């Protein structure tokens, strides 16, 4: 039973790490802000979810496990909100007054 749980942890965390890697590759390779945000938020939410899922059998219940789930939920909330705000900032001209431009060469 312990072996099966350890195996589950290893697989879930590895999958999560792959999602993080995919998100990072997307952040570096995608052409514009909106697609980069898409790669970052989706992959990170899933990646962190899988890592939390993998860690659940390894922590003491109920306090440790509930803390991990709470961390994941708060990151979901923060990630989704920041993604929305950044997308809005990238699309609207109203924020141009506060963007920092590169100096002309």
């Amino acid at each position, binding site marked *: 039973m312990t072996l099966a749980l350890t195996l589950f942890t290893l697989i879930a965390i590895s999958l999560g790490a792959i999602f993080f890697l995919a998100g990072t590759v997307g952040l570096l390779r995608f052409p514009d802000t909106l697609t980069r945000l898409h790669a970052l938020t989706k992959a990170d939410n899933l990646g962190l979810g899988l890592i939390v899922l993998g860690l659940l059998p390894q922590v003491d219940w109920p306090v440790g496990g509930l803390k991990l789930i709470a961390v994941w939920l*708060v990151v979901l909330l923060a990630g*989704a909100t920041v993604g*929305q*705000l950044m997308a809005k900032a990238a699309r609207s001209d109203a924020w141009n007054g506060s963007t*920092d431009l*590169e100096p002309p060469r």
Partner: protein
Amino acid sequence: MSAALIVDLGLTLLILGLGVWTVAARSNNGAVVGYIAYGLLVALVWVRLAAVDVALTEAAIGSGLTGLLLLGVATRLPRSARLTRPPTGLGTRLLAGFLSAAVAGGLAAVVLLLPDPAPTLAPSVAANLPATGLGNPVTGVLIAFRAIDTLLESVVLVFAIIGVWSLAPKDGWGERPGWLRPAPLGSALTLLAQLLPPIGILVGIHLFWTGATAPGGAFQGGAVLAAMWVLAMIAGLARPPAVSRRWLRLMLVAGPALFLTVGIAGIWLAGAFLAYPVAYAKPLILVIEAALTLSIAAALGLLLAGPPEHPSAAERQP
């Protein structure tokens, strides 16, 4: 080479690289964002060094609060000052670089030349900790053994607020702080500012309360509470209070004032300034920490809210 060593080495290289990137960044905003990420990485290093208290403070105040302050300054600079033309000659910059390198080299030499084992007061802290009734040695050092440092730090925060408020324009004195321009209602930020504060306030109080026995304390708890207040102000759900409000000023000085009062009372009750009578050490420390948490939260929130402005200043500025 163990896995932990590889992770530490990678973390160190990442921090050094990010430091160089931050110094070399061509725009102020870019440099500030680099600095925020740098602070979060440094917090990870503190965790690796098993100094979780310092890691929490670094993440909350070093990276989060200072980063936000710098970001506010970077966007507030007039456009002409934002262009990173070198303002000084090559000689001055070389001299500055040389002096910075000398300071870094000196620090490295001091750390490397420490005798082995390094001199430490940790055993005497561990031996005397039971007298305070605390379980967390960091809180013991902050509130009991080196209480004078913490007292002065909490007073410095009040001075910082006075400094920010003294930047008020002539017609702004006594009005509400004006740096946080609220976002339009109905955006994603509104939802976040409605959902997160109940959780954040709980976490802030928990950090203060658990500081007696585990990593946490007044500064970390206060920083989280201040973050929740600032979130509500940025989202437009709460307005910053006018700086002439008496309750606000009482809140700002409550922590340092109570700390100082208990410290002076200690001269008669326990035989020394800032000493606690042993029988009441734990409850006194908790009361002081609670008042400090409140004052720190108020001070940090007001630091970000900026100097007071006349209500019409919002229309005059873009």
